[in-house]
Structure formats: C-alpha cells, structure tokens
C-alpha cells in the first residue's frame, strides 16, 4: 500500500516539476508547480509529518502560489514565453553528474550507521503537539527570527512592488520618463 502510494506520488511530482521546468507557457508552469506542491504534501502525510503537510498546502499552494498568480497578472500569460536556449548538453550533463554524486553519497554505507535522534519523537504524542513542543522550546529564537524575517519580507515586497502602483505600466519605460509625465499630470 505504502509502496503504491509512494511510487504514484513520486511519478506525479516528478512529472509536474518537469512540466514546470520545461514548458513554454507560464500558466502551465504555474499550474504544474501548484500541483507538484500538493503532491509533495502527500509525502509529508505518508511520513507522519501531518502538520508539515498541512503547512505545505496552506503556505505553498495557498500563499506562495497566490502570490505568483498575482505576480503573473502583470504579464501577458497567454503568450508563449520565448527564451534563448543555452546548450542542453551542459545543463543535463551537469545535472546528471550532480544527481549521481548526491545519490552516491546517500547510499554510502557510513551515512546511516551513526545517527542518534537529537529530539526524539515521543510515543503517544500527536505530530502537531510534538511540533509545538519542540518549536516553542528548542527553536523559539529561530522561530521568532523567522517571524521577523517574514515581516521584513512583507514590507519589502509591498514597498518594492507597490511604488507608483497607480501609474500606467506600459508607458512607464524609464524613471526619467515617469518623472516628466508626473510633472505634466500635475
């Protein structure tokens, strides 16, 4: 049962991400990425990390993807994305070498032998409760820092994207041009 689920989702995720990477349509890419994210959350549920799976769906599919979707509203998404290609040999060669090396490291015998759990899961305690216990005791400061970071990122996003939101984007080629237009408007 587990094996069937694993292989199904593995194939689905891989295909989705491949579409994301290889397609020429921005909309396809976005949709495939969102689908891939959701399929990944399935692995989290399989691994017993229920909370993480929920977060994955909420944050990625809910927030990040929505953000991307809004971002894409600036551009013409129906148009095929034209990209100048670099030689695929280099790309796939490098990727293949990287993959082989990582896999080789992962299957090396010494990896699995000598690892002991730092914060072992306690039997009979649910995953969400467990996460809460560890996160708010051992990782409190990183958690707070991450919160501040998110805040900063939010402000930055608003400031960067939000400036001169009221002005025509297509006519706005240049900062200097904008300023002259502004003066004309006034």
């Amino acid at each position, binding site marked *: 049962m587990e094996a069937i689920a694993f292989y199904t989702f593995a194939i689905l995720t891989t295909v989705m991400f491949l579409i994301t990477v290889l397609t020429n349509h921005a909309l396809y890419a976005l949709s495939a990425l969102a689908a891939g994210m959701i399929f990944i959350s399935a692995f989290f549920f399989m691994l017993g990390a229920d909370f993480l799976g929920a977060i994955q769906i909420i944050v990625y599919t809910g927030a990040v993807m929505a953000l991307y979707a809004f971002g894409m509203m600036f551009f013409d998404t129906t148009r095929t994305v034209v990209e100048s290609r670099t030689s695929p040999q280099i790309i796939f060669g490098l990727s293949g070498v990287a993959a082989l*090396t990582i896999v080789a490291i992962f299957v090396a015998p010494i990896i699995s032998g000598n690892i002991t759990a730092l914060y072992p899961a306690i039997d009979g305690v649910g995953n969400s409760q467990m996460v809460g216990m560890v996160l708010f005791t051992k990782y409190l400061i990183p958690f707070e820092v991450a919160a501040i970071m998110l805040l900063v990122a939010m402000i930055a996003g608003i400031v960067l994207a939000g400036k001169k939101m009221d002005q025509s984007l297509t006519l706005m080629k240049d900062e200097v041009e904008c300023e002259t237009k502004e003066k004309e408007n006034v």
Partner: protein
Amino acid sequence: MELYLYTALFAPIVGSLFAALFGMSKKNIIAGLVPSALLFVSWLASLKLLIYILGGGEEVHVELMTWMATGDLYVPYGFIVDQVSVTMMMVVTTVSTVVHVYSIGYMDHDKGFNRFFAWLSAFVFSMMVLVMSDNFLGLFIGWEGVGVCSWGLIGFWYHKETATWAANEAFIMNRIADLAMLIGIFLVYWNTGSIQYHEAFAAMPALDTSVLTAMGIFLFIGAMGKSAQFPLHTWLADAMEGPTPVSALIHAATMVTAGVYLVVRANPLYDLIPDVGLFIASLGAFVAMFAATMALVNRDMKRIIAYSTLSQLGYMFVAAGLGAYWVALFHLMAHAFFKALLFLGAGNVMHAMHDELDPFKMGDLKTSMKWTWIFMTLASVALAGIYPLAGFFSKDLILEVSFVEHHYILYTVLLLTAGLTAFYSFRLVALIFHGDDRHTENGVHPHEAYNFMLYAMLPLAILAVVAGMIFKTPYYEMVTQVLPAVEYHIHNHTTFWIMTIGTQLFVIASIVYAYKKYAKAVKVDKKVESGLLYQLLYNQYFIPQFYEEYFTKTYRELSEMMWKLDMKVVDATVDGVANVFHGTGKATHEMQNGNLSTMLRWMVIGTVVLLALAAAFTFGQSEGVVKMLSGLGAI
C-alpha cells in the same frame, strides 16, 4: 683647530651643492664664483692648519660621529690632520682653487657651466675626505667619490661618444682595482681587528709576513688602478676626453696621485714587506720608461702630457717602493704644481686653436700667446728637472734614492727616462710655440686667454719655480715626524757632483736635441714613421687593441650569451607567469559577463565540484573503501 678642519673639509661640498642648485638652468656666473670662493676659504683653512702643524702643533684628530658600530667593527667619521694629510690638503686646495678660477674662464661658453662646478667641487670634497680620513673605510669612500666625480667629468661632454666611452673605461678599470683594494681593507680588518690607521698599523708587526704581503699587494692593486699603473694604465690617456681643467686637477695633480698617497699612508705596512716595496719600485720604473716612450711619438697634446703624468707617477712609486716615502710625497707635491700648470697652458692653447690637439698643426704660437708660452716652458723645465726649479729637487732626489739604495738598474732606467722626459716635453713646447706657422692655413687665428686665467695660473708658475728650493727643508722637517726620516746623501762628493752635473747635462742635451729637431720647419721622416718601433710606440704598444680584442670582445660575447640566457630563461619565466594570469583572465572574463544565467550555471558547476569533493572525502573515510584501496596497494 677643529673648526679649521671642518671648514677645509666641508667648504667644497657646500660649493658643490650650491652650484648643483643651478645644475639644470642656464649659465650663471655665481655658480662658478661661489665654489671658487669657498675653495679659497678651504685653502685658507688648510693654510692655517699647515702653519699650526709646521709650528710643531699636535696632529688634529676629530671624530664627527659614529658611522658604524656593529659587533667588533667600529668606524667613526674620523678625520685626521697630520703632517702627511696637511701636505696633501695644501696640494689639493691650492691646485683646485687655481683650477676653479681658471675654469670660470675656460668653461665660459659651455652650456654645462653650472654642472661643471658642481662636479668639480664635489670632486675636491671627495679628495679631501680621501686624504683626511683616519681610517681605511673613509679613505675608500673618498676613493670611490673621486672615482664617481672623475667619471662625471671625463664624460662631461656626454653627447660625445668618445667621452662617454672614456668615462666608462676609467670607471670600470677603477672598479677592477677597487675590488682588490676592498679585499685589502677586509684583510686589514680581519687580521688586525681595526681599520683605524693607528690601531691597524700598530697591530701589523705582530702578523705573519705572508698575510702582510697579501694586504700590501691588494692595497697596491687598488693604488695601481687609481694611479693608472701598468697594466691598468689605458684609461688615463683616454680620460683626456674631459675638459682640460679636469685633466689638470684630477688626472695630473690630485686623484691619480691618490695611489701614491695610499702607499705613503700605509708606510708602516710597506716597511714590513720590502719585497713588495721592491716590486712597486720596479713596476714604477717600468711605467716611467714605458709611458715616456709612448709620449715620444704621440701626436695629441693632451695625451703627451697624460703619458708624462703616468711616467712621473712611476717615479713616485719608485721612491715609495724603496721606502723613501717623504721623497715620493715631495715629488707628488712638486709634480702637482708644474703638471697642473702644463695642463692649464695646454688648455689655453686648445682654446686658441679651437680644440685642435695635434701639435703638428700649430707652431709659432709664442708670438700670439706669450704668457702661455712662458708658463708652459717653465712647467716643462720644471718637469725636466733643471736646477733650480721644482722638478730638480724632487726628481733628482728619486734618482739619488735609487742610487743610494744600490738599485742601479732602476737608476739607469730612471736616468734614461729623465732624458726622454726632457725630450718629449720640449718636443711639445717646440712644436706648439716655435717653428713655422702651420695653423694659419687651417684658418685659425690664435689669441691669448683671458687675463684672469693667466693670473690664476701665476701661483702655480711661481710654485713650480720655487717649490723645490724653498719648501724642501721645512717640508722634510715636518713630514719626517710621521714618515721614516732617511736622508739620502751620496757620501762621495765626487760621485755626487758627477751624477748631478751629468744628469743635468744629459737632460739639457735632450732639450737641445728636441729644439733642434722640432723648432725649425718640421720634416716628417717617413722612414722612421713606418718603422716597427715607431708604430709600436704610436699604437701604445698595441695594449688598447689587445684589451679590446681579448677582454672587451670576450666579455661582450659572454654578455650576449648571458643576455640570451636572460631573455630565454629569466624573462621567459617572468613573462610566462604574467602570460598565465593574462591568459586565464582572458579566458575567464566571459564568466563575468553580468548575465545571471551564466552565473547560475557557474554556481551549479561549483556545487557539483563541492559535491564531488564531499563524495571523495566520504568514500576516502569509509572503512570499506580504505580496505579496498589498501588491497589494491594504492595507499
């Protein structure tokens, strides 16, 4: 007295620096007057010191400051004025003051007027350091200083290739000798533990003779270079490319006699090694004869005088080598006066003849240049050693020394040379001032030099006449306080008179013969000139050609080989390093094209490399792999 010492020493360098301030600007008469005046001050200070020493004063010994103090080596900036150095100081300051004043006229139209005085005064300073230093190292500094100034002054007209060549020749020849001298100084320090004169000489009698011989020989090789003794003599004749006042001051009166001064200064050393002394005397006699023969046939006025200088230096070395140091120093002094006078006279002639140097193209100048004629004749008479001029007292004394010391071969050689000296001196005088007029056809109308130049020469003329007569006794009494006091008297009165009168007659006969042969119309004897002997002498025994052929060319070939080696190995290595960096920069600057995509690709490559390294270390550490590798014998 110390104030006078410092004045005498430092006045010339002040003058030099003052003139150097104007070095790059146009001719400024101040640049000539101030150094001359400062030299006169230096002369006055030297005179004061001389009077003090003559009056029986203690030697003046000062230490300005410590120069080096490392371990056992202690060298101060120490200066000493004793009987020997005060004599040298008087000679140097007198001649250089005269030459400075003279040069104001001589260099009148020269573009490098200011530069000339800067060099000339710097030379005088170096010479003063040389003679006043109380240790070998200070002497060496002065020694090198005069070498540098000599180089700058020989090559003064640097646009002339011959001048620069001669300057370099002089400099390089002196370097060869200076190396030996430096070795000599090292030997002195090594064996005596000091390079202060008095300490070093005090320690010498206890040393082994072979060590002392080595010291003496090496120091003498240094003296040979500076005093242009055979076989390092060729530079002196070529050095005549410099301005004539330079020849008068440096290459006749002062610098070239530094070698004699060194031997005189090191008399306690040479007294201990009479064999080396004899060698010095023999070489001196040989050079005296050798140079005189070359002067017989030369057709270049200044070169003739240069060879005569060489010959007289030979005389001085004979005296010094035989232990008659005071005689050597005395001849040095007398020679400085009349030889400088002779050179300055030659300078007047050169000016009048528009830099013509061949006396065969002159003739009959006595009418237009009366005073120069008188001065040069006086100087030549003094050089020839006719009573009662300076040369008689000093040169005949050397003859007597060699006779009294029973070196009859030396005596014969020197006697013959005296005849040759008289002959070539008056050949020159006769060719220039007498005979038929050979210059008007070349469109030259000679005129006498400026009056003040002639007045400047006057003190030298007077000294050339009276130096021997008046100075001999007080000088003897003074210097023998520090130099070995040996009176050279031929005990048999008959022998003495026969010798003196015989020498005089021989010299006078030579003079008369020279006048007879050259004072009338000059007949060129083709047969003699094509003869082997004449050619040998005219080509300076083919020694310059020999040096050219065997040393210069060999060295050049070696240098070219080394140059190729340098280009192909050293330069290629350096260039290679540069090329590697340039090449890699060129090859990799595409990486920095600013394109994010390219950067990302490089980032991935970096990741892969790091991963590969991680993998390599992982497998390297895992036991299974270690076993496998050790089984294969790789580790």
